């Protein structure tokens, strides 16, 4: 199809969808409205279960099943990336050249690395209290590890990143989440029911029943998934080369 025709189609389709969306926007309740029935029920339910952060309560208790789907997406994407970025038949690995990094940058990376790791853990641990949680903290922790690549060089990163271990962690974290769900079922309530543990004191680290456990499982899953994803891309960008003449 020619460029012109595509632009015409795009104009027609875009105009139609735009008209539809604008008409819908005009019918939407005004921005900042007060009516949120589900939201209010969720806040009440979260407080009843001593979870200070309602979003954590939603993600790991009330709508925990969605989160199971979400970490399965991560799990599947990692699996898919490993499959898609594997070494093809006509490729080989080349040893990357060591990098020369200016001293201040290297120092900064080495200082920021533990700080970022700790921050990641802090964000995960306080997930059910303050903003944050397994997902946010997991990404921070995993990104922090890659400061080694940015600030030092690839081989330093490879040394602290045993991929086999992360592979297992990835699978274990998903299983842990699902098994915690099954535990609810076996205890006679329902899948992913938060009735196994006491709800604890409001606004402390151990409050919320199984919320902190699920939160930790998600943190572990996200951290290992991000490390594995980036490992796939780093392999491609740094190591894997095509055979000459192919």
């Amino acid at each position, binding site marked *: *199809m020619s460029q012109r025709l*595509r632009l015409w*189609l*795009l104009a*027609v*389709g875009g*105009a*139609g*969808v735009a008209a*539809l969306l604008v*008409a*819908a926007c005009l*019918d*939407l*309740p005004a921005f900042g409205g007060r009516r*949120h*029935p*589900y939201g209010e*029920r969720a806040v009440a339910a979260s407080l009843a279960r001593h979870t200070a952060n309602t979003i954590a309560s*939603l993600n790991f208790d*009330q*709508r*925990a*099943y*969605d989160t*199971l*789907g*979400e970490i*399965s*997406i991560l*799990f*599947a*994407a990692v*699996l*898919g*990336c*490993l*499959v*898609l970025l*594997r*070494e093809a*038949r*006509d490729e080989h690995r080349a040893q990357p050249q060591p990098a020369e990094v200016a001293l201040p940058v290297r120092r900064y990376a080495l200082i920021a690395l533990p700080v970022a790791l700790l921050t990641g853990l802090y964000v995960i641990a306080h997930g059910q209290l303050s903003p944050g949680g397994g997902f946010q903290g997991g990404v921070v922790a995993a990104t922090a590890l890659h400061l080694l690549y940015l600030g030092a060089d690839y081989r330093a990163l490879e040394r602290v990143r045993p991929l*086999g271990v992360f*592979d*297992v962690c990835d*699978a274990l974290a998903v*299983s842990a989440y*699902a*098994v915690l*769900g*099954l535990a*609810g*079922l076996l205890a006679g*309530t*329902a*899948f*992913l*029911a*938060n009735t196994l543990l006491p709800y604890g004191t409001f606004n402390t680290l151990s409050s919320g029943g199984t919320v902190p456990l699920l939160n930790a499982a998600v943190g572990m899953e996200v951290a290992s998934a991000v490390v594995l994803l980036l490992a796939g891309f780093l392999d491609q960008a740094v190591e894997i080369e095509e055979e000459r003449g192919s």
Partner: protein
Amino acid sequence: MHHLLPLLFAVPLLGAALLVATGRRLPRAVAETTGCAVSGATAALALVLLLNSAPPLVEWVGGWRPVDGESVGIVLVGDGPALGMAALDSLLTLSALVYSWRYFDEPPRGHAGSYPALMLVFQGAMCGFALAGDLFNAFVFFELMSVVAYALTGYRIDEPKAVQGALTFGVVNSLGAYAMLMGIGLLYARTGELAMTKIGRGLDDAAGQGGPDALVLAAFVLVMTGLLVKAAAVPFHFWLPDAHAVAPTPVCMLLSGVMVELGAYGVWRVYGTVFAGPGGIPAADLTRALVTLGVLTAAIGAVMCWYQRHIKRLLAYSTVAHTGLFLVGLGVLTPEGDDGIALYLLGHAGVKAALFACTGALLDRFGSVDEQALHGRARGMRAFGVMFAIGGLALAGLPPFGTALGKAITEEAVGGPLTLVYVLASAVTAGAVLRVTARVFLGLGPRPEDAAYETSGSDERPETGRRLSRIPDSMTAVPAVLLAAAFAVGVAPGLAAVVARSVNEAGSGGAHTSVHWTPHGILLGLVSTLLAVGLAALAVTRPRRLATPDWALPLRRLQSGHVGDYVAWLLVGATVLGALTLPGVLGG
């Protein structure tokens, strides 16, 4: 019993996690056997739940049962159609895994478990989508299903076509999913709820006497865009041939056999629970929209199917044509139409998967799926030739296959000129399949000439490590069993009645219908079979007469393989859908 519903997703997921955790050490045979075992266990669970699904099972995940009619949790609905789809996809995954058992080529080094693990997650995602009673939960599983499908489609990274098809698939489907999510956002803004039944009630309350407004229309269009992209309705269908033609054969069996149909199922479910009330989209408008798109889909799918030489692509277009027929049948909104489509879908899944399985055998034996390059070369593969021919006849609706029964009931439900669409679309796609049988397995007729604008199926890499000299028994048995299952759907006494009862209970408030073979239906089935055989005979003996006429060329040029075009078409499709539904909103 209802507490077990989430297990249909959790069990395959745990199996996949197990395979990944141990994948580095596991020998291949063990990994694939584990995959089959877990998939089989899930299928058994789905069947057990299906047998207990009257009255429908309802599960509030996490034990968040409603208090005063209000809940904060996620609801799963295990009625007949939902568990039926779950059982169908589980059984099909099992057969795909058995089909690829020990034959499928080169697992990535140290990741022997990754292919069966992906298949298991795919199975779980499809089950999860089928059971979802919460709109956002449906979106999550929709995305999970898509993500796994992209990875599986691009599995053969050495194939240029495979990676291109997978990317097109990925971009178009993700965009459709985002459109769906925007629609969910609009619905949430209006009703403040996420469970489908509650949204439906919320829309009715909000509309009062007024009927639907622009917001409902936009939400309907956006949600349906996402589902119709999955169901590959024209003009959202372009990704399908590109993806299905290049995916590994066992994956094709799943994509064509059940994933696309899940899109149609989603349309049925979402319309029925969310938009069917007085505050939703009026029935006349839905019928107009779905029947128009469905007829277009059937027509374009059938025409494009006829002109393919790449056998997998041909089968993919036949899937497009058949989903068009499904949409028409669902669009007329009669209980009989729903029953017919449910049976048609069951039969079609078996037949289409069997046809793909046979094509896979050709690919592994000859390294090609091109009708012209394979001309007469498969004479020795008699069993596959017979199965391919039977598959073609079943696709046309030869009684007493399940496809024929479903088609006959639907034809009666739609009535009038739409019957003709069913007869013609099934005859043309079946004719193309029979033509392939005659040329490839029997070597009849002269070799046709190359056309200008087409995808050839030669130079494909077999999916096995090397070309097979002998096809393993598991690869022969699977299509045979699938065809037998499609046959059984048509003849098993009482099955049709059970399916109809559970579909009506879920969809049309328990309306009573009687579904059985009628002379009229048998006659129409025979007519389209004869038509298909005639078309195939004509194509083989007088290829000139049916070679691409000029008028089909513009149609073929639309299938350009360009992601940008497909995105533009998606927007056009949403606009068309909006325009077709608009009258009811204006009138209201």
